[in-house]
Every structure is written in C-alpha cells, then in structure tokens.
C-alpha cells in the first residue's frame, strides 16, 4: 500500500484461513445433507420432466400447476438448503475506512457551490427571470389534464333515472309485460322500453317487477294507484351500496339483497326490515295502457341507489 492522502487510514486487509471455524459448513453431517439435497433436485428434475410430458400431451390443467409447483418447490428448497447448510457458515467481518468526507473537503464544497455557483445565476438576470417564468407557466398548465381527467360534472344524473311517464316496461329481451303474463308470486327484471340493452338502462334504470296478488293494493299513503292488478315495481338498486336486489321470497313477501342482507318488505313500500339499508327502495308508479301492457305512470320520485346526500 502507498502513502496516498486518500487512504483514510485503512487497516491492513487480512484474509481468513481455510481452517477457521467460520469457513466450515453449518451441517454436522455435510455428506448426509448433500444426499438430501440431491434427492430434492432429483424430485425437481422429475417434476419438470413430468410437466413437459403433461403439457405436450395436453393433460388436465391441474397437472401443469401441480408438477410445476412441485418442481419449483423442490428446486427452491435445494437452493436454500445448500446455502444454509453447505456453504461456509460465517460470520465474516470486513474492515472499512470511514465513509464520510473530511471537514475541509465539506466546507470547500459548500463554499464553491454557494459563492461561485449562485453568483453565476445572479449575474445573468434576464435569463434567470425567464427561467423562472417558464417553470411557473409549465406547472400551471400541467394541472389542466389532471382537472379534465376528473370527468364531466354529473349534473342531475344522480337524481333522475330514464323512466318517463307512459314508457312501457320491457324485460331483458325487449318484450313488454302484459298484466296477464305473471302469476301471483312471480318476479321479473324490467327496463324502460328501448333502454334494455344500454349501460344506463341496465345499471341505473333496472327495476324489479313483482306480482304480489291479483288485486291492487296500497304500499304507502298517496300511492293508491301505483299497483294495478297487484303488480308492484321497485328500483333494483339497493339503497345501501347499490347491489341488485334480486332475491324475492314470495311467502315472506320480502326482497333480500344478496350483498349485505338488507331485507325490504314489498307490501309497505320496500321499507327495510333488517340490514344496513337506510331508506326504502324507490317505487315506480305503474299503470296499464290500452292493450293491457304495463307502463310507468311517471319516473321515480326520489334518487335510486345509495344515498349521496347529507341526512339530518
């Protein structure tokens, strides 16, 4: 070694002799461990060969995963075991010089940066101003794509569905529903006529139509004419978190939501009888047109789905 000023006073480098305790393998019986690792690797080879054969012969898919997994497990275990038990066990210590720069070097660097570097920028006033201006404008316009990517304002889309007065109820295939079609205790998922194949129609306008009995009945005050021939229609979106409420139990007259088990009583306006739903399902007023098909007598009188407004 030399008298170099950058030596930082390194200690003499020594190497460990081959007989030192930390150079011995960890295993008390290295030969036995070697046999075990050989077995693992043979299992791995066999598993990989098996995978190749199965893949070539188009065997059942689960064999691919099983054999590949087994092979990788065996190979991985062999690697770990070799590294743990057969390699020198350590610990090994390596001397290092002090990593930090000296005090004189640090203060000289600080002086060069602040005095000479900053002075260069202060000298060119015009360029410095223009640089600041371009950075400023850039940071402002970089926000434009961010703001636009937030999407259009919803307007009143959250409050209003596509159901309109006089619109026929149709099922998923576009067939309108006649009042003689459904037996007592039947259910059907309906959409506004023409919207049964659209995203909005299926996501927001979906309505569950239930025939509770043969005669009209009243679900709530003011809704006396909403259930012709015993048909009642509620929004299918659960008022808890929006899952489609498709489970109808005809003897209990209960609509159950499958996600969090909110239960709505269909006889009294889908009032929640159990579960986390905070408000009843909105009811669609129904009427019958001249040919006997069910139509909506108006839209929903409240927003459908989960509530998004403050409640007192």
């Amino acid at each position, binding site marked *: 070694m030399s008298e170099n000023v950058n030596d930082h006073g390194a200690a003499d480098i020594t190497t460990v002799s081959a007989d030192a305790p930390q150079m011995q393998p*960890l*295993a*008390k019986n290295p030969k036995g*461990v070697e046999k*075990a690792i050989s077995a693992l690797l043979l299992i791995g080879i066999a598993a990989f060969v098996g995978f190749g054969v199965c893949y070539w012969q188009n065997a*059942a*898919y*689960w064999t691919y*995963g*099983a054999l590949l997994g087994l092979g990788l497990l065996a190979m991985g275990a062999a690697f*770990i*075991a070799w590294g*743990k*038990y057969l390699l020198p*066990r*350590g*610990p090994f210590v390596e001397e290092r010089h002090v990593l930090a720069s000296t005090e004189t070097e640090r203060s000289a660097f600080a002086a060069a940066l602040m005095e000479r570097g900053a002075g260069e920028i202060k000298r060119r006033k015009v360029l410095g101003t223009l640089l600041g201006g371009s950075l400023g404008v850039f940071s402002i316009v970089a926000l434009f794509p961010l703001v636009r990517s937030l999407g259009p304002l919803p307007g009143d889309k959250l409050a209003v569905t596509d159901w309109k007065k006089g619109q026929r109820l149709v*099922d*998923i295939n576009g*067939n309108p*529903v*006649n009042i*003689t*079609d*459904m*037996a*007592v*205790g*039947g*259910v*059907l*998922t309906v959409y506004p006529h023409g919207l049964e194949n659209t995203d909005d129609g299926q996501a927001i306008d979906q309505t569950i139509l*239930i025939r509770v009995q*043969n005669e009209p009945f009243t679900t709530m005050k003011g809704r006396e004419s909403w259930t012709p021939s015993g048909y009642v229609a509620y929004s299918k979106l659960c008022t808890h978190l929006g899952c*489609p409420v*498709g*489970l*109808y*139990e*005809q*003897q*209990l007259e*209960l609509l*159950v939501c*499958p996600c969090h*088990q909110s*239960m709505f009583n269909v006889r009294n306006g889908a009032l929640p009888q*159990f579960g986390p739903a905070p408000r009843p399902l909105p009811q669609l007023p129904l009427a019958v047109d001249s040919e006997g098909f069910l139509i909506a007598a108006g839209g929903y009188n409240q927003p459908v789905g989960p509530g998004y407004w403050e409640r007192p």
Partner: protein
Amino acid sequence: MVTMRSTLKKAAAGFSLSIVGLAALSFLATPLESGAATKIADDGLGATAQICPSGTTQVAGKVGVPANLVNENGDTAKKNAGTAYSDVQCYNAAGEMVAYGNADILYELPSSSLIPLGQQLYMQNCASCHGVHADGVLPNGTTGNYPDLTGLGPATINFWVTTGRMPAANPRDVQAMRRQPRLTVFQSNAIAAWVNSLQPATPYIPSPNLKGANLTVGQDLFALNCAACHTITGGGDALAYSTFAPSLHVATPTQIVDAIRTGPGNMPRFTGNLTDSQVRDITAYVAESIQKPTNIGGVGMGGLGPVAEGFIGLALGVGGLMLVSFWVGDRSE
C-alpha cells in the same frame, strides 16, 4: 444450532395441521362448474312436430288458462294465473286437455285411471296435515296451519313429493328439506291425478327435451333470474328468517321445470315471462354445466366461493409460506 432435522420437525408439525384442515374440507370437494357453454345436439324436432301422446288429438295454437280449468265459482285457476304458453294442446276422446306444450317441454296430466289409487295414497300419507279435501282444513275444522293443495296443478305435487320434501319430516320446520323420497314417481303421479281432479289447474307435469338446448341463453337467464338466490354455481344460499335456497346439484330436469313454473315455497313463480324454450335452456344449463362441471383447478371445494377457497389459501398458502420464511431466515448460529 439449527439443523435440517429441527427445521423439518417444525415444518412437519405445521403442515400436519394444514393436512387435517384439508382432510376436513375434502367432503366439500364436489365439482365446480366452469361456465363454458356448449350446445347439446339438436334432435331436429320443430316447434310443432307431432308430440302429443298417441290416442289424443293435437291442436295447434297458444293457450291461456283453458275454459275447462275454470272452477265452479268462475275463478280461473287462481293460484296459477299466468299464461301457459304452448304451441300445441292434446285432447283426449272426452275433450279434456291431457297435455300441452311444444317440442321443448311437454306438460302431461297423469292418467285419470290413477285417481282411485291417488285418493287412497293421499289419505294414507297426506290427509293428516292437508285435510281430507286437500284444502288444508283439518278434521277438527282448524285451517291455516298447512297449505291448501287445490288449484295448484299436478306439477306442484310432483315437485314436492318426488324431491322427498313431502310427506314432511318435521311439519314444524320453517322450510322442508330435500331427502330420500318416500313415494315413488308412480305413486306421486297418482296423488297428483287425484288432487288435480278436485280443482283442475295447470301446470301439468313437464317432460323437458334437452336436445338442442342453447346453454348460452340458459347461462344468461340463470344469471339474471336464478343466481341471486341459488348462487352462480348452483350451490344454494341462506335467505331470511331461517329459509334458504337449496343446492341445485341433485335436481332432475323435471323437478327443475316444476320449480320454475310453480314457484315452490319462497321461490318466485316464473310463468308467462319465460317461454318453454327459455325454461328448457335454463334446465339444460343446470343439468349440464352446474351438475357436471369441469374442475379446471382440480378441486371444486363445493363451489362455495371465497370462504372455502380462502381457508385453503390461508392455511396452506400463507401458512406454508410462513414456515418457509422461518426456515430461510433462521440464524445460522
């Protein structure tokens, strides 16, 4: 000092717990449906082929509730109001409709020669709860405890008796469970013939023809109408107030159409809004994809979803990985 042996002991102890867990779950390893839709080969019968049983006259044309199914009060078959869409009806020599339907599903009335046997079997097995007139009125006059069986159609009787739910194992149960049937199909038909004779009604007992079914349509309709309660794998699910939707893995096609058309128990009744072709497609989907699934992953675990699969994932996957991490990271000295 850590040795291979001590680590293997730890691994063995840990894994034995996982194996016990897996063995406990092995009873759940019933097949899982894959959802791959295929077609069943068509048998070439058109919608209005000659399908009526021999000895009957075939008449074409859709039927509502036929006039001879109106009871003495002028009511239509009140509990089954809903159009029985059919392409043909079959009338016997006496002018009674003994079958209706089309090439997809043929609904047949059990022969009236079974009525005396049916009455006898009914009195032996059913009258103690449902009353001697099959109207739910007990001999001491009380009503309302057990359902009125009249006006519901032979398919209702067929469903409840051939699935073993009736005669009820425990009449006080909230929901009767499927079990080994106590009466044969022949006996069930006889009872259905007698009960139907009290107040004739549809639907008759269906014989679905699964050839040529479109499993894609079946899957779509199943997902829209059935999967909410029965789950997408047909494994069944719990509902409100101790009721539940049963598993579909052991239902026969006739029982499936029975249930769809009659809406047993809390199940809704799907009548006019599902055509026979659609009901046939749903039945074929259940009979093929749900009851005979291909388990691509190897083990279906009952098709119960995330709970069973999560247990395996956590016990074997995460547990195993934990043991491996302990082994790898063990200090050498």
